[in-house]
Each structure stands twice: as C-alpha cells, then as structure tokens.
C-alpha cells in the first residue's frame, strides 16, 4: 500500500479518516504491519504466570514466529526463537517443565535455560560428542529481546526498538504509584480468553474509547456514566480512558479486596484503562489490575488472553475464591459484550466504499491517536513526523 493512502490518517482528528480497509482485510498489509508495527515494537506474547517456576517453558507462535518463553534457574524470564540450531526442528513442543536443559527432540542437542548450546550428542560419530566445525560457543539459541512488565512478557523481535524502560517510560510514569508493586495471580479462576474474528487493531480501537460504553455496556450506566470518563492520550505510546467513579466490589458480608500500597486519593474512585501499543491492553484499580494480550492469528482473527491480578498475596487463597470468581465473571461479561462489535467492524470493512470512517472529534480522539501511531509506523519516520 502506498504511503499516500495514510496521509488522511495523519490529519488532526477533526478531518482525519481512520485506517483504510486494507489494514484489516489485506494479507499484504497484514504482513507489512507484522514487520513495521508488531516486530518493530515491544509486543506482549504471554505472562510471567505462564512459566512460574524455574525450568518451565511455554512455546508460542507469534505471527508465524516460533518462540519459547523460559524461566531460567535464577528465576529470570528468557525468550528464544524456538528453533534448534542444528536442523531447525521446533525445540519445545508444548507447555511444561523442561528440567535442566532445552533438549531438541530430534537429535538431542541440548541448550541451557540461558540458551547456551551445552551438548551435541554423537555429533562426531557414535559416542563422540564433539566435532571439528561444531563451535558450541557460536551455536546458542537465538535470544529475542524480552522484558517483563506488569507480568506481561514483552518481546521486540527486530531488536531495533528503544530499551523497554524508555519505550514504556511514559506509561510507567503515569502509573508510577503502582510501579514495582507485586501482582498476585490466583490461577484458572482469574484467567480467560476469547477467540475473536477480527483484526487485532479493532480490539485496541474499541478498548481506547469510552464512547461506546452506554450502548454496549448498559450495565455501567447506573454507576459509571459516560460523563464520568476521560480520555488518556500520550501520542506515540498509549491511549485509553479513565473513570472517576470506580467503586470496589463489596461482598455480601462486607469484604472487599485489599488495596495496593500507598495510593493517592486519585485512586479512591479512579481507574484507568490504556492500550499500550501495539497489542497490550491494561487496566488498573485500587484493588486489582488486569492485562489483556492480543495475539493476532491472521488478518481477521485474534486471540485475546485476559489475566486478573490482585494487590495482596492473601487474595489468591481459598478465602477469597468467591469474590475472585465474581470479579472474573464481571470482567468476562463486560469484555464479551465487545465481541460482536469488533467482529461487526471487521465484517463492515469488507465494504469497498468504506473510507476508514469519520471520527467524533470529541469522543474518538484516543482511537485516532492509535491510528496515527500505526500510520506513522507504516510510513517512514520523516514523512510521519511532518
């Protein structure tokens, strides 16, 4: 697609159009976005909770790229290309414990949990485990840049993005009061996912704005009206929405989840939801948080993984199971209400006369900020800055 098709996206929200249809229905543009938007930035691919213990590993195919997330012996998360350096065999086939090394199931070449090639059995003939031409020092697994923030495992596949701390600095600053506080996850009852028939960007766009809330989530109207929400816009980094009337869940016997430590008054009734570009949707409240990772499967199919976290270790105990289950059910219902919308927008983009759409200058600007960022990534930086 030529850059000229994106110039209207870069206009001010008053006159801008949304991203053209091709960004949702074209295999070519999907492939171009893979390289320029997703592989070139820091994408979420999974969660620290997926590999809680040393020796845990979980393979994931991210946009066709075989990756494996590993918890090493020191407890650090590593991400590798899940491909043996010998014959290119997929190294780890399924989630589970790999033990002390990653052993290729084909010829049993073994890699340490830090990716070093430590054993090449029979490589020089039967019982001879070394050979001229096999330099183990240079045949370690290909490590992918990774970083864990808010329990989300991020990767930068092309390794050209700024350091994660710089990339996420604005978001870390905005939510500085939560920064570094432990997040506790209880397992299955705080975890769910959707398999949605839409392009990944539509899930981001829907999450960014509060405009749709009274129509799609009518249950919110009684306590969290449209006018109780505000836009969050940090161009080039993230956008979303906040509310000033968050009310913690209270059980029938008067319990409520413990709060994160040391929060200011803002968070007594405040909550915020940001789309951290490109594919991670985050929410924070005084007493819990969640992270949603969008895993694009094709131009028109996305898996949404949702994980909910709490401020206090005790909340993951059986004592809180009923409340946790209710909280998960509440979020699942809300997020499920959005599915027909994002799937409907995907179908609507088959309409050849759709022009990307006209934004509400007042209500849609967080979505426009996202579109502007995508368009800027797709165009060369000089043009994008103009």
């Amino acid at each position, binding site marked *: 697609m030529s850059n000229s098709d994106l110039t209207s996206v870069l206009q001010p929200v008053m006159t801008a159009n949304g991203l053209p249809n091709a960004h949702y229905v074209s295999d070519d543009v999907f492939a171009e976005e893979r390289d320029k938007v997703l592989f070139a930035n820091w994408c979420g691919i999974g969660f620290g909770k997926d590999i809680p213990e040393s020796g845990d590993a979980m393979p994931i195919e991210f946009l066709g790229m075989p990756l494996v997330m590993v918890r090493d012996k020191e407890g650090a998360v590593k991400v590798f290309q899940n491909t043996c350096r010998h014959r290119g065999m997929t190294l780890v086939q399924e989630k589970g414990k790999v033990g*002390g090394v990653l052993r290729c199931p084909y010829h049993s070449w073994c890699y340490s949990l830090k990716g070093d090639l430590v054993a090449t059995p029979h490589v020089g003939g039967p*019982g001879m485990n070394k050979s001229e031409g096999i330099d183990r020092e240079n045949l370690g697994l290909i490590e992918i840049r990774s970083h864990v923030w808010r329990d989300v495992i991020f990767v930068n596949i092309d390794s050209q993005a700024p350091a994660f701390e710089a990339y996420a600095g604005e978001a870390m600053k905005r939510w500085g009061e939560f920064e570094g506080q432990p997040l506790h996850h209880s397992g299955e009852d705080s975890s769910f996912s959707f398999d949605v028939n839409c392009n990944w960007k539509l899930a981001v766009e829907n999450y960014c704005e509060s405009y749709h809330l009274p129509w799609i989530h009518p249950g919110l109207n009684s306590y969290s009206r449209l006018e109780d929400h505000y836009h969050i816009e940090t161009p080039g980094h993230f956008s979303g929405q906040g509310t000033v009337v968050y009310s913690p869940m209270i059980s029938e016997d008067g319990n409520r989840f413990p709060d994160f430590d040391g929060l200011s008054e803002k968070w007594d009734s405040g909550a915020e939801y940001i789309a951290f570009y490109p594919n991670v949707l985050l929410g924070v409240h005084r007493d819990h948080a969640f992270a949603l990772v969008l895993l694009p499967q094709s131009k028109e199919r996305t898996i949404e993984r949702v994980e909910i976290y709490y401020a206090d270790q005790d909340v993951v105990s059986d004592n809180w199971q009923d409340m946790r289950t209710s909280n998960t059910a509440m979020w699942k219902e809300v997020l499920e209400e959005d599915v027909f919308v994002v799937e409907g927008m995907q179908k609507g983009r088959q309409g050849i006369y759709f022009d990307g759409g006209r934004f509400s200058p007042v209500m849609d600007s967080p979505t426009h900020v996202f579109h502007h960022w995508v368009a800027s990534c797709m165009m060369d930086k000089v043009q994008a800055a103009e």
Partner: protein
Amino acid sequence: MTDEISNLNQEILAAHSQKDKALLSKLYGQAAGVWDERGDQDQAAFYFTHAWILALETDDPDLEHYMQRLAELNRV
C-alpha cells in the same frame, strides 16, 4: 550380547515407552558401566552419552560422573 546388557536394554526400552527420563538416565548409566568394566570404550561412550543427556535434562546427581567419564574418554 550378554544377558546383563540384554536385560538392561529391555528395561531401557520399557522406560522409553514410559517416558521416564530419570530412570532412563540411570539405566543408560548402568549399561555404560558394564561396557566400561569390559573395556569396550566405544560402547561405554555411547551409553554414557545417553546417560549424560538425560541427566542434564533431569538434573540427575550422577551428571558429573557421566561428564567426567566422557571427558576421560575424550568424547566431549
């Protein structure tokens, strides 16, 4: 092939079917020891190699012994 090795090979096959890697490492180590005692370094190295790889995977405490023996045989 002697009965001892033959029996061990049967046990190794059974452990392979069970995917019992810790047991496999031990059995390969035992077979390697038998060949080692008989002075057949090639056979010993073959079996020590398997014991070593599986010990790496299972964090078996005999790992050091297998590595040391392979090093002495100039096989690693």
